[in-house]
């Protein structure tokens, strides 16, 4: 094991000094930030450029003060002027203006339930949607005119909605002060945040794990394997590579987190840590690490059969696609996270880590039996894949001059 750590240290040091690794390490989060913020900034810039809308209101109903309060919460950019001018004159003025609107709040319009809005040229399409928030206060006015009491008005404006509730939580929540929706969202975030973090960890370590393929292949191409194997066993070399690239993946995650945490915590004012550090995180991280070990075993084994990456046959190239296999199942799993496809995806070792992480992030109740079965299959698969990779690596890494054929690999496995 000591020798494996020496190899791991070397692989990490070698890659950390590699310019392309350093560039991608810092460039990836920067690109993420750029792609995430540039559209928002551009939109903001676009909005800033647009002047505020001049809104002329004829307030026959004397209701504008109430409506202004509703509008304030929306942060709309209106320049409101209460007018008493003649409508015909006002409409004439409107034809000469840009980005202006006239809203006559009259008794007749309220009775009819239809308020005409006159727009000049260049008024943004969103203006008419913004107006919809005034529908509530106007409806209240209608009810008042009908002589309804305050309680009746409240019942009518509240309406009736359907709301999902868990049977088991009904009793627990009965005595709680929080609204049901708020608690549900908090519970959900306690799953989603650790799940997404474990997903990022899995993604990062599997991506760096792909470099094991290249590393094993390079060791053959550069004919350095035999010198290294004069100091340690093939198993130690293989394990060292797996540990080394795991470390490299974790360094990558750490750097990404350094970028992400301040942005999420301070810029978006999201309490990341309170949702992240929950006991469930340990299981989710275990699934990520197990996923890495599985793919690392495949990459290191197959990498030892390839000398020339450019001449790699479809068979070896396809191995690189394996981590993306869960993408096929994501649609059905998304629509039904407890369905049959989701269950099969959780049991099949190559899709199990990603599908499990996804399901455990969205399911309110964790299906513990399914989780245990999946993890047992996953751990047994890792053991089997490591054994096979060890057999392939031992012979493959010393075979110079050509890529191994599937027949040759089968022969090594049977040895």
């Amino acid at each position: 094991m000591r020798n494996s750590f020496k190899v791991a240290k070397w692989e990490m040091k070698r890659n950390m000094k590699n310019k392309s690794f350093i560039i991608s390490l810092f460039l990836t989060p920067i690109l993420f930030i750029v792609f995430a913020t540039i559209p928002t900034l551009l939109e903001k810039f676009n909005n800033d450029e647009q002047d505020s809308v001049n809104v002329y209101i004829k307030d026959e109903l004397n209701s504008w003060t109430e409506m202004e309060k509703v509008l304030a919460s929306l942060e709309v950019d209106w320049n409101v002027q209460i007018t008493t001018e003649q409508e015909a004159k006002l409409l004439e003025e409107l034809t000469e203006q840009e980005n202006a609107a006239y809203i006559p709040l009259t008794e007749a319009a309220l009775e009819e339930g239809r308020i005409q809005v006159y727009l000049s040229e260049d008024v943004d399409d969103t203006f008419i949607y913004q107006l919809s928030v005034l529908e509530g206060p106007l409806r209240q006015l209608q009810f008042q005119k009908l002589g309804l009491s305050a309680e009746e008005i409240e019942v009518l404006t509240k309406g009736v909605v359907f709301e999902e509730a868990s049977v088991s939580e009904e009793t627990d929540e009965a005595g709680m002060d929080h609204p049901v929706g708020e608690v549900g969202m908090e519970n959900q975030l306690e799953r989603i945040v650790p799940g997404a973090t474990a997903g990022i960890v899995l993604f990062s370590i599997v991506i760096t794990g792909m470099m094991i393929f290249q590393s094993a292949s390079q060791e053959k191409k550069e004919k350095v394997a035999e010198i290294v194997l004069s100091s340690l066993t093939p198993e130690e070399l293989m394990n060292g590579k797996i540990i080394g690239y795991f470390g490299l993946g974790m360094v990558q995650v750490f750097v990404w987190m350094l970028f992400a945490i301040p942005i999420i915590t301070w810029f978006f004012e999201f309490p990341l840590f309170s949702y992240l550090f929950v006991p469930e995180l340990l299981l989710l991280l275990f699934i990520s690490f197990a996923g890495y070990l599985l793919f690392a075993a495949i990459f290191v084994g197959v990498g030892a059969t390839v000398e020339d990456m450019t001449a790699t046959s479809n068979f070896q190239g396809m191995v690189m696609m394996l981590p993306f296999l869960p993408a096929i199942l994501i649609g059905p799993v998304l629509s039904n996270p407890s369905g049959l496809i989701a269950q099969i995806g959780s049991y099949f070792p190559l899709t199990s880590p990603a599908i499990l992480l996804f399901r455990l992030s969205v399911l309110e109740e964790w299906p513990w039996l399914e989780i245990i079965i999946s993890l047992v299959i996953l751990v047994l698969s890792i053991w089997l894949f490591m054994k096979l990779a060890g057999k392939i690596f031992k012979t493959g890494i010393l075979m110079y001059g050509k890529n191994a054929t599937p027949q040759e690999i089968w022969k090594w496995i049977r040895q």
Partner: protein
Amino acid sequence: MSGEIVLSVSQLGKSFKDKKIISDISFEVKKGEIMAILGPNGAGKSTTIRNIMGIMYPDEGSVTFAHYKSGSIPRHKIGYLPEERGLYKNVSIMDILMYFAELKDYPVAKAKKRALAYLSKFGLEGKEKTSIEELSKGMGQKVQFIASIIHEPELLILDEPFSGLDPVSQEVFKQEIKELANNGTAILLSSHQMNLVEELCDRLYMIHQGSKVVSGTLSEVKKEYANFKCTIHGDNEPALLEKIPNVLRIEQKGKQTILYLSAEMDIPKWVKQWPEGIQVEELSIDRTTLHEIFIQIATGTGTKEGVQDA
């Protein structure tokens, strides 16, 4: 040479599927001795070496290093330069030498000192931060050689150390190998350059088709098994040449004829037995060289007398 035995190989055998690659290979390498393992391509030299190094596992026989048996041999006491060799391309010379020293459990500070001393000795002074990919092939081979001896090994195994080297670099390597042996390192090397083997080695072990054909000290092999050969320049018919007695083999190219004779030949007596009519413009009689023994074995033209155990 009566030094302490460092490496002992006993009845080593290895097969791939049904094909026997090496069989019954036995030899010893002593402290301060340079031992050559020779043979044509495919003879089984590298397989023998890989089995000694534990890179392959023998089907038969055993390897003993000092008092350690196969499977428990301390790899950090052995230096190895394989035939198929290379280095990581995008790292500096010093980084790679330190990595190999670390793999051999050698103290870093001491390794650094040794690395700088050897780089200077091999004309690579000031290049310790240079990336391997910037080096010429010869320079790269020097770095590989330093990597194999950085940890002061007790046994050094060099598989074709001179291949691809220019004469100047060959000389540098030769001197270094001699110096290491003088300082007590046991050295096992394989090579195709027979002149270098003759100059360097104390003993040799020649294999062909996986089995031993000749072994012993260089002087023993030369004295006992390097046959006489007689070179004649002149127009002579093959039928007439075949009448010359005690000739093991005849090679004729134009006017030049080489007669291969046994090692224990009484030359003056033999010359008197020649048939009449042999035309001689020039005549020379000498012993066959190690190079010729090697060629005879490689081409299968060797004689039983020429390739026996010393």
